């Protein structure tokens, strides 16, 4: 059944396919357009460089009037990401606007990586290291970057079968 939310998500998908912002990719599950898998590549010249951080976006029928719930699946060490992977980002809460789409959500999260908001930390340890011991902070982030390359064992999304006739 097609609903306004699903139709909008199909438009988001088309936009992701036609002009995806650099360093992010996302697609809905083949059997459920309300759940999306996404990957954000850590921006270059930041401690997150080359990380392949996976996320899951869960939409409901209120989209785009309500934001999706967004969660990192990959382990993160960032002042605004909770241990559960959920993130604290104003545009996903009280500053949401129905003009945002999957592409702009992921771009915002990508820029949050190297521009954390220290005033209301979700991960106090990460916030403290970021403020007072930057080299240790970078070391911890680099560990998560390395781990991000390993945690795609359980899904075979990169399995490119070339079955062309």
């Amino acid at each position: 059944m097609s609903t306004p939310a699903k139709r909008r998500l199909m438009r988001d998908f088309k936009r992701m396919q036609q002009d995806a912002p650099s360093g992010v990719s996302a697609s809905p599950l083949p059997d459920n357009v309300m759940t999306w898998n996404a990957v954000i590549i850590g921006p270059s010249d930041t401690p997150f460089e080359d990380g392949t951080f996976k996320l899951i976006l869960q939409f409901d029928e209120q989209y785009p009037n309500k934001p999706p719930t967004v969660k990192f699946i990959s382990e993160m060490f960032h002042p605004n990401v909770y241990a559960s992977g959920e993130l604290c980002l104003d545009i996903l809460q009280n500053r949401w606007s129905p003009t945002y789409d999957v592409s702009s959500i992921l771009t915002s999260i990508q820029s949050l990586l190297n521009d954390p908001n220290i005033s209301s930390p979700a991960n106090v340890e990460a916030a403290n290291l970021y403020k007072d011991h930057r080299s240790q902070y970078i070391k911890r982030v680099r560990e998560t970057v390395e781990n991000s390359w390993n945690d795609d064992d359980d899904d075979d999304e990169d399995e490119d079968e070339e079955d062309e006739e």
Partner: protein
Amino acid sequence: MKVEIVDWQAVASWHWDLKDDSITDELCGICRVAFDGTCPNCKYPGNECPLILGAGCQHNFHLHCILQWLEQDTSKGLCPMCRQVFEFRKDFNTVTKDINSLLMLIDGHKSMRDREVDEEFDSFDDDLRMND
């Protein structure tokens, strides 16, 4: 030559009749469908779902798209594009039920904002009294 019409199908295209034609080529920022297309809640285009033209700001939306956004308390009555208080041009031939709902929602958000300002002033007054 004798031509016999066996079957025919009428095809029509339609277009919003606006003074500024460039608007209708744009997409609604909420549903991302062209203004000359229908909003995702409508099957057919027409006066049931007219374009709502921003009056304070210059942002335009399908009626049902902006209506559903302003139904959210979290919208605070603001334009989803620029976060200014949303107002619209009211030059409609017929004012439908949905246009009335939109007017009521905008009024509701306005009185909500006024109340918040009043409360702020009240607590400010209380602070002053305490300092006296």
